[in-house]
């Protein structure tokens, strides 16, 4: 977990980029395994657990949605779990995240429980927003999570401001934020990237490039293939990372976080991945070519993590099964909690428009 030198270069993580275009090959896993040795066994196993927990929880949400028990949008990170789990695991407790709508793993790693998430989905008073908002629109400053705003990329300037606060106070804290390939088209992406670079703020900004924004493929979103091209235009280092490889995400995030913490300023990370479900669970996503999904299915982040853990001798089938069962139990207990939780009462709708005092007071 050593910090990298602050080279202002556009680097592709050695040995990882190759994973993106071919099917899962043993040589590549070998390469990952080499650098993954930097990661503590326990950390890697914990990340694996969070991958399973995220998958289990979101699959549960999808099932509830299909049963008509969840209303409104259902955005999952199915097939992209490694990104949020990887970057959130790379942060310290005092750091802050401003996640986007495919970052369930980050909420979990930072301590939002499956029960709270399900309560949020069910509109219960015990969810992080007390029923005021739904699904992934949650946040909690006590756990260092800036609440997600629907308007894509709106939280990027906000994240730079959090980083500015740390810089002004001389604190060695870092902010991690990001948006989708679609979200990069918004003006706020630009204004945030630029401000972060000008003031060398301790912030890491990522793009979850899952190749689609709702139905819109990347080629209608931008005239470049790699979003990371943009980093250079702000005078910021950037990396392309295999977003399906939790170890790669973790290591690249660690490097970027270390740079930020050491006063080296912001980094831009492009996590290449693929959205495996519809935009929201109502969307059959017929516009995505079947072959593309077939290809990416082989690169599933859980599968990849299992290969790696096996390779490193950190885990085996039995351990994986055990983790899956533990995740299932945790989610079911959470659902029980959520279901037994009360709904808010109507008049609570009137509460909370204004703060009585600021949190820091």
């Amino acid at each position, binding site marked *: 977990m050593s910090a990298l030198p602050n080279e202002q270069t556009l680097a592709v993580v050695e040995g990882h980029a190759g994973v993106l275009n071919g099917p899962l090959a043993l040589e590549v896993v070998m390469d990952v395994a080499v650098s993954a040795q930097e990661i503590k066994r326990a950390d890697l196993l914990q990340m694996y657990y969070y991958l399973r927990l995220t998958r289990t929880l979101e699959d549960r949400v999808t099932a509830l949605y299909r049963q008509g028990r969840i*209303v*409104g*949008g259902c955005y999952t990170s199915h097939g992209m779990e490694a990104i949020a789990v990887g970057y959130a695991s790379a942060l310290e407790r005092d750091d802050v995240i401003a996640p986007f709508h495919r970052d369930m793993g980050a909420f979990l790693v930072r301590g939002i429980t499956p029960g709270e998430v399900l309560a949020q989905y069910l*509109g*219960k*008073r015990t969810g992080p*927003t007390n*029923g*005021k*908002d*739904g*699904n992934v*629109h949650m946040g909690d400053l006590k756990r260092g999570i800036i609440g997600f*705003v*629907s*308007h*894509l990329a709106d939280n990027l300037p906000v994240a730079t401001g959090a980083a500015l606060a740390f810089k002004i106070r001389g604190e060695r804290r870092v902010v991690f934020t990001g948006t989708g390939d*679609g*979200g990069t*088209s*918004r*003006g706020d992406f630009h204004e945030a990237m630029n401000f972060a670079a000008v003031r060398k703020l301790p912030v890491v900004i990522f793009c979850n490039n899952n190749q689609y*924004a*709702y*139905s*819109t493929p990347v080629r*209608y*979103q*931008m005239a470049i293939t790699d979003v990371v091209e943009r980093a250079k235009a702000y005078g910021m280092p950037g990396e392309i990372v295999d977003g399906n490889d939790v170890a790669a995400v973790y290591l690249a995030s660690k490097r970027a976080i270390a740079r930020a913490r050491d006063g080296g300023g912001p980094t831009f990370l492009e996590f290449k991945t693929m959205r495996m479900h519809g935009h929201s669970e109502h969307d059959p996503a017929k*516009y995505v070519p079947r072959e593309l999904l077939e290809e990416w299915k082989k690169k599933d982040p859980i599968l990849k993590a299992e290969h790696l853990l096996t390779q490193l001798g950190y885990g085996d089938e039995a351990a994986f099964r055990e983790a899956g069962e533990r995740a299932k139990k945790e989610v079911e207990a959470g659902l029980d909690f959520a279901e037994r939780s009360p*709904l*808010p*009462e*109507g*008049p*609570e*709708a*009137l509460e909370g*428009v204004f703060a009585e005092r600021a949190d820091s007071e």
Partner: protein
Amino acid sequence: MTTTMDQRTGEVTYLEAISQALDEEMTRDERVFLMGEDIGTYGGAFKITEGFLQKYGEWRVLDTPLAESGFVGAAIGAAMMGLRPVVEMQFADFISCAFDQITEVAAKNHYRWGAAVPLVIRAPFGGGVHGGPFHSECPEGWFFHSPGLKLVAPSTPYDAKGLLKAAIRDPNPVIYFEHKFLYRRIKAVLPQEDYIVPIGKADVKRTGTDISVVTYGAMVHLALEAAQVLAQEGIDIEVVDLRTLIPLDKETIYASVRKTSKAIMLHEDNKTGGIGAEIAALLAEECFDCLDGPIVRIAAPDTPVPFSTPLEEFFLPKTSDIVSAARKLAAY
């Protein structure tokens, strides 16, 4: 195309009425084209433009990058060059991202330097769909206070079709507020022939003698429901559906209140600074003599739209709110 009607009754939904208007205007006038997120391949988040890409091609049905300010700005430019862009906000809530282009560029160009901007912005708005704070907003109040824009908000399939056609043919920027709650919930048989509903004309959706309820959008249906309940108690409600929010049809509003002497303003938008305030103020200034009671406002409270069902139900105006306000006012 989604513009298929019920084969048995010949009825189309509010949503289909919007599709039909777009389709017919695009066929009638090749200058009309569409821009927005996911409106092409996907046919739009609500499937209003399903099939349009195949029919009109990718240069008349443009899937844009996720950038509301950028594509509204682009629509302004295309409009000034003689085209007739219709842009879709995926949800009205995201119109805040294009606020600057709408209020500072589109709204002011003609006044400042004489350039007409014939642009339509479709904004699917309103709550009751479990959308939470960012998928349920009523942003019309902001634009109501922005000189240079026209605003319409139909409540029926007939008005939806006719007002959209009128908006497309208007030489000014028009924001077209279509209520998501109504999309598939109301149906009507529409005329075979081409028609428009003129911008600037309100419509009395129910005549009555005791109290005028001035409203628009989905709330029209609540007002009509309340009127039925109240009719049984001998209170005769007149329901004025504004249809156009700017320019306001003051004559129709005043005529109604001169007749009934009592007025309730009803809207789903937040109360403070909402459109009901303006109409109340107009009545208090222009029809003061004819008022036989306070001007009552029923509107959502001054909060964002909450997500959880009991909260949202509490938040939204209800038929019972209208009934009890009308009873009190009738007894005044």
